[in-house]
């Protein structure tokens, strides 16, 4: 089935992905997180022992499923292409920056939309930053920003990330080698098989529809084209209905238990960083996983950058904390971005401007 020849079908792909996210939330993924690329990469980095934050360690089958779903569907439809060579180290840095921005906000663009659908006004505030970040990236594109072209590489090269994903899955299912949280968000998860199937389906539909949170807004700003936005709208509507139907829709700022904070400036700056970096890297965190699955070693470098930064964020105390309810006093303790996180976020924005306005297309 051609999923991309009309806006209705694109929206349908979003609906399918929304249903997957809703099911995973229903079957045990953390409330209001459902399906977050940044959080799940962070959890997986924790499972591999890259950081020691005990509450967020779990090899998320969703991440593995996304990569493999994209890989399998692209092989099946002969769209798998092993490519590489477009400024890999800059893409690694962009991946790091995306993750640092995401963990200052507490979520990737996918989770931002899921949080928006659950009434979390912090996510709506962050959307302002995300749009501004994308607009800055588009401005850089108009000024001639380029990381250079990629080239076809050995077909084995593009498979590496999918093989690593299978390896992590085998370790997670058949050994006790990987770390797994006993409390906190890392301990909350849907059954492995469901999460894996959910990831595969999500990955396949995301590959077919080219779902991208940054790309959807980029295309609107750049070309007034709403194709990719339809996918996101479909996902949003399904999650909104799910949240309303199951009593998970809570309109407000201070909502304990959903892993979010109300530090408005840093919600905006965090997502500004993500939006800006995602346009430069050619896609949001979800899109990077999908592109990596279909053979792009450049996108795979961005994914590796996200893993490394996720570990750094927790090792160096950069990640924000969520507003929580004190179990003993029943008082709401406001979440916040630590000083280290704020400094890191500002450094990231400076680095983005340097990358955006020094890497230019070479005229022939």
């Amino acid at each position, binding site marked *: 089935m*051609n*999923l*991309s*020849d*009309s806006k209705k079908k694109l929206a349908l792909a979003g609906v399918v992905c929304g249903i997957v996210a809703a099911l995973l939330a229903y079957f045990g993924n953390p409330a209001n997180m459902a399906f977050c690329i940044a959080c799940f990469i962070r959890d997986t980095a924790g499972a591999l022992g890259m950081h020691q934050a005990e509450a967020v360690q779990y090899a998320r089958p969703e991440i593995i499923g996304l990569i493999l779903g994209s890989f399998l569907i*692209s092989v099946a439809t002969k*769209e798998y*292409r092993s490519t590489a060579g*477009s400024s890999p180290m800059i893409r690694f840095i962009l991946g790091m920056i995306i993750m640092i921005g995401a963990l200052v906000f507490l979520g990737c663009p996918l989770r931002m939309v899921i949080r928006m659908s659950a009434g979390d006004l912090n996510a709506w505030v962050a959307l302002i930053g995300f749009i501004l970040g994308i607009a800055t990236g588009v401005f850089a*594109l*108009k000024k*001639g*920003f*380029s*990381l*250079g*072209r*990629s080239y076809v590489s050995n077909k084995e090269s593009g498979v590496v990330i999918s093989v690593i994903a299978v390896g992590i899955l085998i370790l997670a299912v058949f050994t006790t080698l990987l770390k797994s949280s006993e409390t906190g968000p890392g301990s909350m998860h849907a059954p492995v098989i469901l999460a894996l199937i959910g990831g595969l389906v999500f990955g396949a539909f995301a*590959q*077919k529809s*080219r779902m*991208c949170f940054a*790309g959807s807004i980029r*295309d609107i700003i*750049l*070309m007034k*084209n709403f*194709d*990719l936005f339809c996918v996101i709208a479909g996902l949003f509507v399904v999650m909104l209905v799910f949240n309303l139907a199951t009593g998970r829709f809570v309109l407000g700022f201070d909502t304990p238990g959903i892993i979010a904070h109300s530090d408005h400036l840093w919600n905006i700056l965090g997502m500004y960083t993500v939006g800006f970096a995602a346009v430069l890297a*050619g*896609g949001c965190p979800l*899109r990077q996983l999908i*592109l990596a699955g*279909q053979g792009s070693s450049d996108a795979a470098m961005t994914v590796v950058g996200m893993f490394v930064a996720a570990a750094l964020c927790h090792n160096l105390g950069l990640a924000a904390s969520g507003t929580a309810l004190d179990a003993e006093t029943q008082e709401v303790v406001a979440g916040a971005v630590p000083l280290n996180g704020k400094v890191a976020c500002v450094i990231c924005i400076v680095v983005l401007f340097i990358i955006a306005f020094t890497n*230019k*297309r070479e*005229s*022939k």
Partner: protein
Amino acid sequence: MRKKELKLVITFHTTADAMAMEKVCKEQNVPGRIIPVPRAISAGCGLAWCAQLEEREEIAAAMKAAGIEEEAMHECMV
């Protein structure tokens, strides 16, 4: 909904090439517009230049003069 018709769709190696194409075409009144690469052509998410089939020669000449290299020229329904 706008009826789809067979168009000339030019893809590029980088988004920056597509942006350069837009700039050159606007300056020189070369016909066409920038569009997302049609899904039927690519699983990537770059930009492409879309024009009428009969404008192929004029566009190719403008690209050559400006030093913009295409990845491919397609004819597809847009």
